[in-house]
Protein backbone atom coordinates (compact mmCIF):
# COMPACT_ATOMS: atom_id res chain seq x y z
CA UNK A 1 0.00 0.00 0.00
CA UNK A 2 2.62 2.53 1.09
CA UNK A 3 4.68 1.60 -1.92
CA UNK A 4 1.77 2.39 -4.23
CA UNK A 5 1.20 5.68 -2.44
CA UNK A 6 4.84 6.66 -2.82
CA UNK A 7 4.67 5.91 -6.54
CA UNK A 8 1.43 7.84 -7.05
CA UNK A 9 2.68 10.78 -5.04
CA UNK A 10 5.61 11.02 -7.43
CA UNK A 11 3.54 10.50 -10.55
CA UNK A 12 -0.25 10.78 -10.22
CA UNK A 13 -0.70 10.09 -13.93
CA UNK A 14 0.93 6.70 -13.78
CA UNK A 15 -0.99 3.80 -15.30
CA UNK A 16 -1.95 0.93 -12.93
CA UNK A 17 -0.34 -1.54 -15.33
CA UNK A 18 2.94 0.21 -14.80
CA UNK A 19 2.51 0.29 -11.03
CA UNK A 20 2.01 -3.45 -11.29
CA UNK A 21 5.35 -3.84 -13.04
CA UNK A 22 7.09 -1.55 -10.55
CA UNK A 23 5.77 -3.39 -7.51
CA UNK A 24 5.68 -6.94 -8.83
CA UNK A 25 1.94 -7.22 -8.13
CA UNK A 26 -0.79 -8.08 -10.59
CA UNK A 27 -2.69 -5.27 -12.26
CA UNK A 28 -5.91 -6.45 -10.64
CA UNK A 29 -4.33 -6.25 -7.20
CA UNK A 30 -3.05 -2.76 -7.91
CA UNK A 31 -6.40 -1.55 -9.20
CA UNK A 32 -8.22 -2.84 -6.17
CA UNK A 33 -5.67 -1.30 -3.79
CA UNK A 34 -6.02 2.04 -5.53
CA UNK A 35 -9.77 1.85 -5.30
CA UNK A 36 -9.52 1.11 -1.60
CA UNK A 37 -7.16 4.03 -1.11
CA UNK A 38 -9.51 6.34 -2.97
CA UNK A 39 -12.65 5.10 -1.25
CA UNK A 40 -11.15 5.47 2.21
CA UNK A 41 -10.05 9.01 1.44
CA UNK A 42 -6.35 8.27 1.82
CA UNK A 43 -5.87 9.44 -1.73
CA UNK A 44 -7.71 12.75 -1.70
CA UNK A 45 -7.11 14.00 -5.18
CA UNK A 46 -4.74 13.72 -8.14
CA UNK A 47 -3.16 17.08 -8.59
CA UNK A 48 -0.85 18.88 -11.00
CA UNK A 49 1.84 21.28 -9.85
CA UNK A 50 1.74 24.11 -12.39
CA UNK A 51 4.30 26.82 -12.87
CA UNK A 52 1.79 29.58 -13.65
CA UNK A 53 4.58 32.16 -13.92
CA UNK A 54 5.78 30.32 -16.97
CA UNK A 55 2.35 30.46 -18.57
CA UNK A 56 2.37 34.20 -18.05
CA UNK A 57 -0.77 33.99 -15.97
CA UNK A 58 -0.88 36.88 -13.53
CA UNK A 59 -1.57 35.05 -10.33
CA UNK A 60 -0.62 36.59 -7.07
CA UNK A 61 -0.25 34.52 -3.94
CA UNK A 62 -0.22 35.75 -0.39
CA UNK A 63 0.37 34.06 2.91
CA UNK A 64 -2.03 35.45 5.50
CA UNK A 65 -1.51 34.85 9.18
CA UNK A 66 -4.48 35.24 11.47
CA UNK A 67 -4.91 35.68 15.19
CA UNK A 68 -8.12 34.07 16.29
CA UNK A 69 -10.14 34.57 19.41
CA UNK A 70 -12.31 31.56 19.93
CA UNK A 71 -15.94 32.12 20.79
CA UNK A 72 -17.59 30.28 23.62
CA UNK A 73 -18.45 27.07 21.90
CA UNK A 74 -16.67 27.21 18.57
CA UNK A 75 -13.21 25.73 18.06
CA UNK A 76 -10.53 26.27 15.46
CA UNK A 77 -12.05 23.63 13.21
CA UNK A 78 -15.18 25.65 12.77
CA UNK A 79 -13.55 28.90 11.76
CA UNK A 80 -11.06 27.00 9.60
CA UNK A 81 -13.89 25.27 7.80
CA UNK A 82 -15.61 28.58 7.19
CA UNK A 83 -12.52 30.14 5.74
CA UNK A 84 -11.85 27.06 3.62
CA UNK A 85 -15.10 27.65 1.76
CA UNK A 86 -13.67 30.61 -0.15
CA UNK A 87 -12.31 29.68 -3.55
CA UNK A 88 -9.61 32.29 -3.19
CA UNK A 89 -8.19 30.39 -0.23
CA UNK A 90 -5.79 27.68 -1.40
CA UNK A 91 -4.69 26.31 1.96
CA UNK A 92 -5.60 26.67 5.62
CA UNK A 93 -3.38 25.50 8.42
CA UNK A 94 -3.45 25.69 12.20
CA UNK A 95 0.00 26.75 13.30
CA UNK A 96 2.02 27.23 16.46
CA UNK A 97 3.66 30.53 17.40
CA UNK A 98 2.46 34.12 17.27
CA UNK A 99 -0.49 33.39 15.03
CA UNK A 100 -3.11 30.70 14.95
CA UNK A 101 -4.08 30.15 11.35
CA UNK A 102 -2.03 30.48 8.21
CA UNK A 103 -3.73 30.79 4.82
CA UNK A 104 -2.53 30.89 1.28
CA UNK A 105 -4.71 33.09 -0.86
CA UNK A 106 -4.62 33.40 -4.62
CA UNK A 107 -5.87 36.36 -6.61
CA UNK A 108 -5.14 38.21 -9.82
CA UNK A 109 -3.65 41.33 -8.30
CA UNK A 110 -2.47 42.80 -5.06
CA UNK A 111 -5.68 44.79 -4.89
CA UNK A 112 -7.69 41.65 -5.45
CA UNK A 113 -6.04 39.86 -2.55
CA UNK A 114 -6.00 42.88 -0.25
CA UNK A 115 -9.72 43.51 -0.75
CA UNK A 116 -10.53 39.86 -0.29
CA UNK A 117 -8.74 39.84 3.06
CA UNK A 118 -10.24 43.13 4.14
CA UNK A 119 -13.79 42.24 3.17
CA UNK A 120 -14.05 38.54 3.81
CA UNK A 121 -11.44 37.55 6.36
CA UNK A 122 -10.83 40.51 8.65
CA UNK A 123 -14.53 40.97 9.07
CA UNK A 124 -15.02 37.54 10.58
CA UNK A 125 -15.93 37.83 14.20
CA UNK A 126 -13.23 35.50 15.50
CA UNK A 127 -10.43 37.14 13.52
CA UNK A 128 -8.56 39.53 15.76
CA UNK A 129 -5.80 40.58 13.42
CA UNK A 130 -4.17 39.66 10.13
CA UNK A 131 -0.70 39.90 8.65
CA UNK A 132 -0.39 39.63 4.88
CA UNK A 133 2.78 38.50 3.13
CA UNK A 134 2.69 38.76 -0.65
CA UNK A 135 4.58 36.02 -2.43
CA UNK A 136 7.15 37.42 -4.84
CA UNK A 137 8.38 34.18 -6.32
CA UNK A 138 7.87 30.47 -5.73
CA UNK A 139 10.95 28.25 -5.84
CA UNK A 140 9.57 25.01 -4.54
CA UNK A 141 5.97 23.91 -4.35
CA UNK A 142 4.83 20.90 -2.38
CA UNK A 143 8.08 19.01 -2.84
CA UNK A 144 8.56 20.04 -6.46
CA UNK A 145 11.40 22.44 -7.25
CA UNK A 146 10.57 24.91 -9.97
CA UNK A 147 14.15 25.54 -11.05
CA UNK A 148 15.34 24.35 -14.43
CA UNK A 149 16.69 20.82 -14.16
CA UNK A 150 20.45 20.34 -14.12
CA UNK A 151 21.93 18.08 -16.76
CA UNK A 152 23.31 14.76 -15.56
CA UNK A 153 26.99 15.02 -14.81
CA UNK A 154 27.81 11.33 -15.06
CA UNK A 155 30.13 9.90 -17.69
CA UNK A 156 28.35 7.74 -20.25
CA UNK A 157 30.12 4.49 -19.36
CA UNK A 158 31.82 3.68 -16.09
CA UNK A 159 32.95 0.40 -14.51
Amino acid sequence: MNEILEIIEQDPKIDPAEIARLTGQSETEVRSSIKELEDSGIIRKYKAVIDWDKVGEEYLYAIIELKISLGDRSGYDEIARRISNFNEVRSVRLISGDHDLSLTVRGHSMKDVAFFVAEKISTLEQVQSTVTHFVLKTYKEDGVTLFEKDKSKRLAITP
Partner: protein
Amino acid sequence: MNQTRQYISDRVNAVPPSGIRKFFDLVIGMDDVISLGVGEPDFVTPWHIREACIYSLEKGFTSYTSNAGLLELREAVSDSFHRDYGLNYDPEDQILVTTGVSEAADLALRAVVNPGDEVIVHEPSYVSYKPSIVFSGGTPVVVSTTRENEFRLTGAQLEEAITPKTKAIILSYPNNPTGAVMSKKDLEEVADVAVEHDLLVISDEVYDKLTYNGKHTCFSSLDGMDERTILLNGLSKSHAMTGMRVGYAMGPPDIIGAMLLIHQYTMLCAPINSQMGAIEALNKGDSEMQAMVREYNRRRRLFVTGLNDLGLDCFEPRGAFYAFPSVQSTGMTSSQFAEELLNQQKVAVVPGDVFGESGAGFLRCSYASSLEELKTALERMEKFLG
Protein backbone atom coordinates in the same frame (compact mmCIF):
# COMPACT_ATOMS: atom_id res chain seq x y z
CA MET B 1 61.27 10.71 -29.86
CA ASN B 2 64.43 8.70 -29.84
CA GLN B 3 63.36 6.24 -27.24
CA THR B 4 65.11 2.92 -27.22
CA ARG B 5 64.43 1.89 -23.69
CA GLN B 6 61.15 0.41 -22.60
CA TYR B 7 60.24 2.56 -19.63
CA ILE B 8 56.93 1.02 -18.72
CA SER B 9 57.28 -1.82 -16.25
CA ASP B 10 56.57 -5.38 -17.32
CA ARG B 11 54.01 -5.62 -14.58
CA VAL B 12 51.98 -2.78 -16.04
CA ASN B 13 52.54 -3.89 -19.60
CA ALA B 14 51.05 -7.23 -18.69
CA VAL B 15 47.69 -5.65 -17.95
CA PRO B 16 45.46 -4.97 -20.96
CA PRO B 17 43.39 -1.77 -20.96
CA SER B 18 39.85 -2.16 -19.69
CA GLY B 19 37.24 -3.17 -22.26
CA ILE B 20 35.05 -0.49 -20.72
CA ARG B 21 37.33 2.15 -22.17
CA LYS B 22 36.82 0.97 -25.73
CA PHE B 23 33.09 1.16 -25.35
CA PHE B 24 33.27 4.55 -23.73
CA ASP B 25 35.13 5.86 -26.77
CA LEU B 26 32.33 4.60 -29.03
CA VAL B 27 29.61 6.29 -27.01
CA ILE B 28 31.33 9.59 -26.50
CA GLY B 29 30.42 12.09 -29.16
CA MET B 30 27.10 10.42 -29.98
CA ASP B 31 23.96 12.44 -29.28
CA ASP B 32 20.72 11.26 -27.77
CA VAL B 33 22.22 8.10 -26.35
CA ILE B 34 20.46 6.42 -23.45
CA SER B 35 23.25 4.95 -21.46
CA LEU B 36 22.65 1.89 -19.35
CA GLY B 37 26.40 1.57 -19.11
CA VAL B 38 26.92 3.62 -16.01
CA GLY B 39 28.22 1.89 -12.91
CA GLU B 40 27.11 4.55 -10.48
CA PRO B 41 23.88 5.97 -9.08
CA ASP B 42 21.94 8.49 -11.15
CA PHE B 43 20.95 10.26 -7.95
CA VAL B 44 23.12 13.08 -6.75
CA THR B 45 24.35 12.85 -3.19
CA PRO B 46 21.49 13.70 -0.80
CA TRP B 47 21.53 17.38 0.01
CA HIS B 48 22.10 17.08 3.74
CA ILE B 49 25.35 15.24 3.01
CA ARG B 50 26.45 17.78 0.41
CA GLU B 51 25.64 20.49 2.90
CA ALA B 52 27.83 18.86 5.54
CA CYS B 53 30.68 18.94 3.01
CA ILE B 54 30.02 22.59 2.23
CA TYR B 55 29.90 23.52 5.92
CA SER B 56 33.19 21.77 6.48
CA LEU B 57 34.74 23.93 3.77
CA GLU B 58 33.18 27.06 5.20
CA LYS B 59 34.58 26.24 8.60
CA GLY B 60 38.01 25.90 7.09
CA PHE B 61 38.48 22.15 7.22
CA THR B 62 41.00 21.87 4.44
CA SER B 63 43.88 20.06 6.13
CA TYR B 64 45.08 16.47 6.28
CA THR B 65 43.35 14.19 8.72
CA SER B 66 45.00 11.43 10.71
CA ASN B 67 46.16 8.71 8.34
CA ALA B 68 43.52 6.27 9.49
CA GLY B 69 40.80 8.86 8.93
CA LEU B 70 38.85 11.08 11.30
CA LEU B 71 38.18 9.22 14.53
CA GLU B 72 34.57 10.42 14.48
CA LEU B 73 34.13 8.80 11.08
CA ARG B 74 35.75 5.54 12.20
CA GLU B 75 33.39 5.54 15.15
CA ALA B 76 30.42 6.13 12.86
CA VAL B 77 31.58 3.25 10.65
CA SER B 78 32.00 1.00 13.66
CA ASP B 79 28.53 1.88 14.94
CA SER B 80 26.89 1.33 11.60
CA PHE B 81 28.40 -2.15 11.19
CA HIS B 82 27.40 -2.95 14.72
CA ARG B 83 23.83 -1.85 14.03
CA ASP B 84 23.56 -3.64 10.71
CA TYR B 85 25.46 -6.86 11.36
CA GLY B 86 26.31 -7.03 15.05
CA LEU B 87 30.01 -6.62 14.26
CA ASN B 88 32.48 -5.11 16.71
CA TYR B 89 35.30 -3.38 14.88
CA ASP B 90 37.44 -1.19 17.11
CA PRO B 91 37.69 2.32 15.63
CA GLU B 92 41.19 2.60 17.08
CA ASP B 93 42.95 -0.14 15.18
CA GLN B 94 40.50 -2.11 13.06
CA ILE B 95 39.13 0.50 10.70
CA LEU B 96 40.94 2.41 7.98
CA VAL B 97 39.31 5.18 5.96
CA THR B 98 40.38 5.12 2.31
CA THR B 99 39.70 7.00 -0.90
CA GLY B 100 37.00 4.61 -1.93
CA VAL B 101 36.79 0.86 -1.92
CA SER B 102 39.14 1.01 -4.91
CA GLU B 103 42.04 2.11 -2.74
CA ALA B 104 41.03 -0.22 0.05
CA ALA B 105 41.12 -3.21 -2.32
CA ASP B 106 44.52 -2.19 -3.63
CA LEU B 107 45.89 -1.74 -0.09
CA ALA B 108 44.51 -5.08 1.01
CA LEU B 109 46.24 -6.87 -1.84
CA ARG B 110 49.52 -5.04 -1.46
CA ALA B 111 49.49 -5.67 2.27
CA VAL B 112 49.18 -9.44 1.97
CA VAL B 113 50.45 -10.64 -1.41
CA ASN B 114 53.98 -11.96 -1.85
CA PRO B 115 55.39 -12.47 -5.35
CA GLY B 116 53.90 -15.64 -6.77
CA ASP B 117 51.02 -15.84 -4.33
CA GLU B 118 47.75 -16.78 -5.95
CA VAL B 119 44.57 -14.86 -5.32
CA ILE B 120 41.26 -16.32 -6.41
CA VAL B 121 38.68 -14.07 -8.08
CA HIS B 122 35.29 -15.12 -9.29
CA GLU B 123 34.17 -13.79 -12.63
CA PRO B 124 32.18 -12.07 -14.00
CA SER B 125 33.10 -9.37 -11.52
CA TYR B 126 34.30 -5.84 -11.10
CA VAL B 127 37.07 -5.02 -13.56
CA SER B 128 39.70 -3.84 -11.08
CA TYR B 129 40.44 -6.99 -9.12
CA LYS B 130 42.58 -8.85 -11.61
CA PRO B 131 44.78 -5.86 -12.50
CA SER B 132 45.14 -4.99 -8.81
CA ILE B 133 46.32 -8.51 -8.05
CA VAL B 134 48.88 -8.24 -10.84
CA PHE B 135 50.05 -4.80 -9.67
CA SER B 136 50.58 -6.26 -6.20
CA GLY B 137 52.82 -8.99 -7.65
CA GLY B 138 50.34 -11.81 -7.24
CA THR B 139 48.79 -14.19 -9.71
CA PRO B 140 45.04 -14.03 -10.30
CA VAL B 141 43.26 -17.37 -10.49
CA VAL B 142 39.83 -17.09 -12.02
CA VAL B 143 36.78 -19.07 -11.03
CA SER B 144 33.88 -18.70 -13.43
CA THR B 145 30.41 -18.49 -12.01
CA THR B 146 27.50 -19.47 -14.21
CA ARG B 147 24.01 -18.39 -15.16
CA GLU B 148 22.71 -21.84 -14.13
CA ASN B 149 23.87 -21.14 -10.62
CA GLU B 150 22.76 -17.52 -10.72
CA PHE B 151 26.38 -16.40 -10.73
CA ARG B 152 27.03 -17.56 -7.19
CA LEU B 153 30.37 -18.93 -6.12
CA THR B 154 30.27 -22.47 -4.76
CA GLY B 155 32.54 -24.18 -2.26
CA ALA B 156 33.27 -26.94 -4.78
CA GLN B 157 34.40 -24.47 -7.45
CA LEU B 158 36.61 -22.79 -4.94
CA GLU B 159 38.17 -26.10 -3.84
CA GLU B 160 39.10 -26.86 -7.42
CA ALA B 161 40.96 -23.58 -7.83
CA ILE B 162 43.05 -23.93 -4.71
CA THR B 163 46.76 -24.76 -4.93
CA PRO B 164 49.49 -24.62 -2.30
CA LYS B 165 50.15 -21.05 -3.46
CA THR B 166 46.64 -19.78 -2.83
CA LYS B 167 46.64 -17.02 -0.27
CA ALA B 168 43.38 -15.16 -0.57
CA ILE B 169 39.97 -15.02 -2.17
CA ILE B 170 38.29 -11.86 -3.37
CA LEU B 171 34.61 -12.14 -2.74
CA SER B 172 32.32 -9.58 -4.36
CA TYR B 173 28.61 -9.79 -3.57
CA PRO B 174 26.15 -8.21 -4.25
CA ASN B 175 27.89 -8.51 -7.57
CA ASN B 176 28.81 -6.07 -10.28
CA PRO B 177 28.02 -6.86 -13.17
CA THR B 178 25.50 -9.65 -12.57
CA GLY B 179 23.39 -8.35 -9.68
CA ALA B 180 23.87 -11.75 -8.01
CA VAL B 181 23.77 -12.11 -4.24
CA MET B 182 24.95 -14.88 -1.93
CA SER B 183 22.74 -16.20 0.85
CA LYS B 184 24.12 -16.94 4.29
CA LYS B 185 24.26 -20.61 3.34
CA ASP B 186 26.16 -19.86 0.12
CA LEU B 187 28.65 -17.78 2.08
CA GLU B 188 29.11 -20.52 4.65
CA GLU B 189 30.43 -22.80 1.90
CA VAL B 190 33.08 -20.21 1.13
CA ALA B 191 33.85 -19.82 4.83
CA ASP B 192 34.36 -23.58 5.24
CA VAL B 193 36.84 -23.67 2.38
CA ALA B 194 38.64 -20.63 3.73
CA VAL B 195 39.06 -22.30 7.11
CA GLU B 196 40.07 -25.62 5.62
CA HIS B 197 42.86 -24.03 3.57
CA ASP B 198 43.65 -21.19 5.94
CA LEU B 199 42.83 -18.51 3.37
CA LEU B 200 42.25 -14.82 3.77
CA VAL B 201 39.00 -13.43 2.35
CA ILE B 202 38.83 -9.94 0.93
CA SER B 203 35.13 -9.19 0.84
CA ASP B 204 34.02 -6.21 -1.24
CA GLU B 205 30.51 -5.44 -0.03
CA VAL B 206 30.12 -1.96 -1.46
CA TYR B 207 26.61 -2.86 -2.67
CA ASP B 208 25.48 -4.34 0.67
CA LYS B 209 22.72 -1.80 1.18
CA LEU B 210 21.32 -2.41 -2.29
CA THR B 211 19.58 -5.75 -1.88
CA TYR B 212 15.98 -6.31 -2.73
CA ASN B 213 14.64 -9.62 -1.55
CA GLY B 214 15.99 -10.31 1.87
CA LYS B 215 18.77 -8.78 3.87
CA HIS B 216 22.42 -8.98 3.00
CA THR B 217 24.66 -11.24 5.07
CA CYS B 218 28.02 -9.70 5.84
CA PHE B 219 30.80 -12.23 5.35
CA SER B 220 32.65 -11.12 8.50
CA SER B 221 29.57 -11.81 10.58
CA LEU B 222 29.84 -15.54 9.91
CA ASP B 223 31.23 -17.60 12.73
CA GLY B 224 34.95 -16.97 13.15
CA MET B 225 35.27 -15.12 9.85
CA ASP B 226 36.16 -11.70 11.23
CA GLU B 227 39.63 -13.08 11.98
CA ARG B 228 40.36 -13.89 8.36
CA THR B 229 38.35 -11.28 6.51
CA ILE B 230 39.25 -7.87 5.20
CA LEU B 231 35.87 -6.26 4.86
CA LEU B 232 35.64 -3.45 2.29
CA ASN B 233 32.81 -1.03 2.03
CA GLY B 234 32.05 2.60 1.33
CA LEU B 235 29.42 5.15 0.52
CA SER B 236 29.78 5.40 -3.24
CA LYS B 237 26.78 3.29 -4.09
CA SER B 238 24.58 3.37 -1.00
CA HIS B 239 24.63 7.15 -0.61
CA ALA B 240 25.37 8.11 -4.20
CA MET B 241 28.80 9.49 -3.30
CA THR B 242 31.03 8.02 -6.02
CA GLY B 243 32.93 11.20 -6.75
CA MET B 244 33.58 11.98 -3.11
CA ARG B 245 35.98 9.07 -2.75
CA VAL B 246 35.41 7.62 0.69
CA GLY B 247 35.52 3.99 1.62
CA TYR B 248 36.81 1.92 4.48
CA ALA B 249 38.54 -1.32 5.27
CA MET B 250 37.89 -3.32 8.41
CA GLY B 251 39.74 -6.32 9.69
CA PRO B 252 42.21 -7.81 12.15
CA PRO B 253 44.47 -5.12 13.68
CA ASP B 254 47.70 -6.49 12.18
CA ILE B 255 46.34 -6.45 8.65
CA ILE B 256 44.67 -3.05 9.00
CA GLY B 257 47.99 -1.84 10.44
CA ALA B 258 49.85 -3.12 7.39
CA MET B 259 47.36 -1.42 5.07
CA LEU B 260 47.67 1.78 7.06
CA LEU B 261 51.43 1.66 6.57
CA ILE B 262 51.05 1.69 2.78
CA HIS B 263 48.23 4.22 2.93
CA GLN B 264 50.21 6.68 5.04
CA TYR B 265 53.13 6.65 2.61
CA THR B 266 51.11 6.70 -0.59
CA MET B 267 47.81 8.46 0.10
CA LEU B 268 48.15 10.16 3.50
CA CYS B 269 44.41 10.39 3.99
CA ALA B 270 41.05 10.52 2.29
CA PRO B 271 39.78 14.04 1.46
CA ILE B 272 38.68 15.71 4.68
CA ASN B 273 35.46 17.23 3.32
CA SER B 274 34.36 13.88 1.99
CA GLN B 275 35.09 12.31 5.35
CA MET B 276 32.87 14.90 6.98
CA GLY B 277 30.12 14.20 4.48
CA ALA B 278 30.57 10.51 5.26
CA ILE B 279 29.98 11.10 8.97
CA GLU B 280 26.71 12.82 8.12
CA ALA B 281 25.76 10.03 5.71
CA LEU B 282 26.37 7.27 8.25
CA ASN B 283 24.72 9.01 11.16
CA LYS B 284 21.76 10.61 9.43
CA GLY B 285 21.51 9.22 5.94
CA ASP B 286 19.36 6.14 6.39
CA SER B 287 16.00 7.46 5.34
CA GLU B 288 17.18 9.03 2.08
CA MET B 289 19.21 5.93 1.34
CA GLN B 290 16.21 3.71 1.87
CA ALA B 291 14.13 5.88 -0.46
CA MET B 292 16.77 5.38 -3.16
CA VAL B 293 16.77 1.63 -2.57
CA ARG B 294 12.98 1.52 -2.94
CA GLU B 295 13.28 3.44 -6.17
CA TYR B 296 15.96 1.09 -7.55
CA ASN B 297 13.77 -1.84 -6.63
CA ARG B 298 10.87 -0.50 -8.70
CA ARG B 299 13.09 0.14 -11.66
CA ARG B 300 14.57 -3.31 -11.26
CA ARG B 301 11.19 -4.99 -11.41
CA LEU B 302 10.09 -2.99 -14.43
CA PHE B 303 13.34 -3.42 -16.30
CA VAL B 304 13.98 -7.10 -15.65
CA THR B 305 10.40 -7.99 -16.60
CA GLY B 306 10.86 -5.87 -19.71
CA LEU B 307 14.04 -7.69 -20.72
CA ASN B 308 12.46 -11.10 -20.27
CA ASP B 309 9.43 -9.96 -22.27
CA LEU B 310 11.80 -9.07 -25.10
CA GLY B 311 13.12 -12.61 -25.04
CA LEU B 312 16.42 -11.65 -23.44
CA ASP B 313 16.67 -14.23 -20.70
CA CYS B 314 17.53 -12.54 -17.43
CA PHE B 315 17.65 -14.17 -14.01
CA GLU B 316 16.34 -12.09 -11.15
CA PRO B 317 19.17 -9.89 -9.90
CA ARG B 318 18.69 -9.38 -6.18
CA GLY B 319 21.43 -6.87 -5.51
CA ALA B 320 23.34 -3.82 -6.78
CA PHE B 321 21.70 -2.02 -9.73
CA TYR B 322 22.54 -4.23 -12.66
CA ALA B 323 20.61 -6.65 -14.82
CA PHE B 324 22.64 -9.21 -16.73
CA PRO B 325 20.53 -10.56 -19.60
CA SER B 326 21.73 -13.23 -22.00
CA VAL B 327 21.85 -12.45 -25.72
CA GLN B 328 22.26 -16.06 -26.71
CA SER B 329 18.80 -16.24 -28.26
CA THR B 330 19.82 -13.56 -30.79
CA GLY B 331 22.81 -15.48 -32.13
CA MET B 332 25.01 -12.42 -31.58
CA THR B 333 28.03 -12.09 -29.33
CA SER B 334 27.84 -9.59 -26.49
CA SER B 335 30.03 -7.14 -28.35
CA GLN B 336 28.14 -7.43 -31.62
CA PHE B 337 24.87 -6.93 -29.80
CA ALA B 338 26.15 -3.97 -27.82
CA GLU B 339 27.74 -2.25 -30.81
CA GLU B 340 24.75 -2.77 -33.11
CA LEU B 341 22.31 -1.67 -30.42
CA LEU B 342 24.33 1.47 -29.95
CA ASN B 343 24.61 2.22 -33.66
CA GLN B 344 21.04 1.43 -34.58
CA GLN B 345 19.07 2.51 -31.53
CA LYS B 346 21.49 4.56 -29.46
CA VAL B 347 21.23 2.53 -26.31
CA ALA B 348 24.53 1.87 -24.58
CA VAL B 349 25.05 -1.30 -22.58
CA VAL B 350 28.30 -2.99 -21.63
CA PRO B 351 29.26 -6.35 -23.17
CA GLY B 352 29.44 -8.94 -20.39
CA ASP B 353 32.86 -10.30 -21.36
CA VAL B 354 34.44 -7.03 -20.24
CA PHE B 355 33.95 -8.47 -16.74
CA GLY B 356 35.63 -11.78 -17.52
CA GLU B 357 35.36 -14.48 -20.17
CA SER B 358 32.46 -16.10 -18.38
CA GLY B 359 30.48 -12.91 -19.01
CA ALA B 360 30.49 -13.66 -22.76
CA GLY B 361 26.98 -13.90 -24.14
CA PHE B 362 25.60 -11.46 -21.58
CA LEU B 363 25.14 -7.71 -21.25
CA ARG B 364 25.48 -5.53 -18.23
CA CYS B 365 22.57 -3.09 -18.12
CA SER B 366 22.52 -0.65 -15.25
CA TYR B 367 19.07 0.32 -14.08
CA ALA B 368 20.44 3.30 -12.16
CA SER B 369 18.60 5.52 -14.65
CA SER B 370 15.24 7.24 -14.51
CA LEU B 371 12.10 5.23 -15.22
CA GLU B 372 11.56 7.37 -18.30
CA GLU B 373 14.96 6.40 -19.67
CA LEU B 374 14.53 2.74 -18.81
CA LYS B 375 11.19 2.62 -20.59
CA THR B 376 12.58 4.34 -23.66
CA ALA B 377 15.57 2.00 -23.63
CA LEU B 378 13.26 -1.02 -23.57
CA GLU B 379 11.25 0.41 -26.48
CA ARG B 380 14.40 0.96 -28.49
CA MET B 381 15.63 -2.54 -27.70
CA GLU B 382 12.32 -3.91 -28.87
CA LYS B 383 12.73 -2.08 -32.19
CA PHE B 384 16.27 -3.36 -32.44
CA LEU B 385 15.16 -6.95 -31.95
CA GLY B 386 12.10 -6.22 -34.12
